[in-house]
Each structure stands twice: as C-alpha cells, then as structure tokens.
C-alpha cells in the first residue's frame, strides 16, 4: 500500500515546527533553571549603535510627499514609453506618432498643472 501523498507534507510541517521550537524550549528551560534573567533600562532600550535614541521608531512621513511621488511616477512611466518610441521613431506610421504626442501632451498638461499649483516648490 502506498502512503497518502499528503503524509509527507504533514511530516514536513512537523519537522518545520520542531526545528525552531525545540531550541527555543531548551533555551527557556535553561533560563528557568540556570540563568537568572537580568533585564534593565539600558538592555531593553532601542539599539542605536550605543547612542541614546531620540523620539519614536515609528515615524511617519508627511502626506504632502505623495505629490513628489506622483510627479516622479509620471516621468518614470513617460521614460518607459519614450525609449521604445525613440528607437522605433523612423518606422512609425503617422497614427502612432500622433498617439504618442497625445500621451506626451497629457503628461505635460499634468506637469503644467502641478507647476501652477506650486507643487514643484520644495517646502517643509
């Protein structure tokens, strides 16, 4: 009789669980019977190369950065389209040329809009 093909997965899961859990359990037993825990304000503090940490670790970036991200994305995508356009430029039909010009116009329009709104000014 052949074993169930899923049996190997069960064995695999068992080994995958035992492999980390056994050393952790041994370490816990060792701490329990031999090594007294010695926590302290320095030991439990955040490690920053020995310097005392300032503020929280969970800082958040200001939401106005999304404008820079979007403008970057526009030109990033534009570059992706422009490179094949430039390579195939001589063999392109008129329709494709006009299509890419419309695409560029849309992006330029977005840039003009962002410029007009003052998004390109670096403000803190």
């Amino acid at each position, binding site marked *: 009789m052949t074993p169930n093909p899923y049996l190997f997965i069960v064995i695999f899961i068992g080994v995958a669980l035992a492999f980390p859990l056994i050393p952790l359990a041994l370490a816990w037993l060792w701490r329990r019977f031999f090594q007294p825990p*010695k926590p302290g304000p320095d030991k439990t503090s955040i490690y920053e190369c020995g*310097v005392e940490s300032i503020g929280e670790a969970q800082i958040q970036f200001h939401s106005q950065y999304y404008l820079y991200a979007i403008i970057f994305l526009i030109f990033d995508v534009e570059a992706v389209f422009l490179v094949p356009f430039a390579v195939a430029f001589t063999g392109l039909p008129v329709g494709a040329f006009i299509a890419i010009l419309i695409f560029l116009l849309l992006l330029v329009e977005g840039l003009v809009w962002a410029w007009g709104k003052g998004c390109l000014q670096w403000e803190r």
Partner: protein
Amino acid sequence: MSEQIDERLRSELQHQGVWVTSMQELYNWGRKNSIWPLQFGLACCAIEMIATAASRYDIARFGGEVFRPSPRQADLMIVAGTVTKKMAPQIVRLYNQMADPKYVIAMGACAISGGPFKQGYNVLKGIDRYIPVDVYIPGCPPRPEALLHAFMELQRKIDEQKLTGTNKAQFLKPEQPSEFPVPKFGKHDLEPPANPDVFHPPEIERA
C-alpha cells in the same frame, strides 16, 4: 566534572568509544567554541583585529569569526583601541545592551590604561574603570597572535566556569548586575571618573 567520575575511568571509556560528559562541560564546550565578538573598532588596534579575522590569522579556527553588528547577538566585546572620553558612554551602553553571559577583552595599551595618551585630557585611562574586563592584552598595537592568545585565555576562562555551587560563574548569580552605570559628560571630566564597584586599581606597596 572530575568530582563525579574518575579521570582514568573516563579515559578508559573514551578509548572504548563511550564519551562521558556533564551538562556543565557540554555547555562550556559549546560556549567557548562559538564566541561571537561585537563588531566595532575604535582605533589602530582594530586593524590588527581585522587582520586576526582575515585569512592569515583566521580567528575562525577558534570559533570567533562571527562578528555581530548588534550587541544582542554578541558574547564578546573586543575594546580595540583608544577609548576617548567622548566615546566611553557609548561603549558602556553597548556593553549594557549585550546579553549575558558577556566578556570583554581590552586590547592594546590605550584600552587597558590610556596608553600614550594617558597624560592627555580627553582619553579614558582604561575601559576597566567602567566595565569589568576579562582579558587584558598589552601592546601598541598587539599583534594578531596576541589577540589570538587572549582569545584562547578567554576560552580557558569560560571552560572553568561553574554552573552550580557557591563559586559559580558571576553571570549566573542573580545579585551580580548585568548593567553598569553609563558615565555622563561633566564639566571637566566624565562623571563619575570611575565606577568604584568595578574599578580596583592595584595598590602600590612601598618598602
């Protein structure tokens, strides 16, 4: 170990293929052969420390090649170089952040006494003023062989540490502190200039 079993019987069994050991021996054997140093260097001694870790001197032969960039994973602090007074609080804080058991090697003349800068105003006159040092290496800088020798001395020290009993290892005693006060910058010097619980300078006896 030797209290429990006769050494000759042990040797006899070993020849027959039976290895008798104890928890303490096994534990210390594992610890002494995987001492992970904290990865930081302070001055020119660090260059010798790097040479010790590189292929020619190869500290990996002693199980110490895993230089950890975090004190949480390190067992050994090699104070390799001049400890300025600006740097001393950070060194003590790093030592405090290491998990027990932890060991310190003071490498070079500067780390053990201030070295050539001892008469100056801005160099700590030995890191043993703030943290307990296990092995001192003299030299300016010590050669890689000297660091390897210190490493072997530390291994010997770890091997002799007891797990139980009244003279068990210091880090196993609950009353032994794991952290030492971090010195502050005072007006002219670090405050305090030395930790009296740790620093026991040799008394000069004059005849």
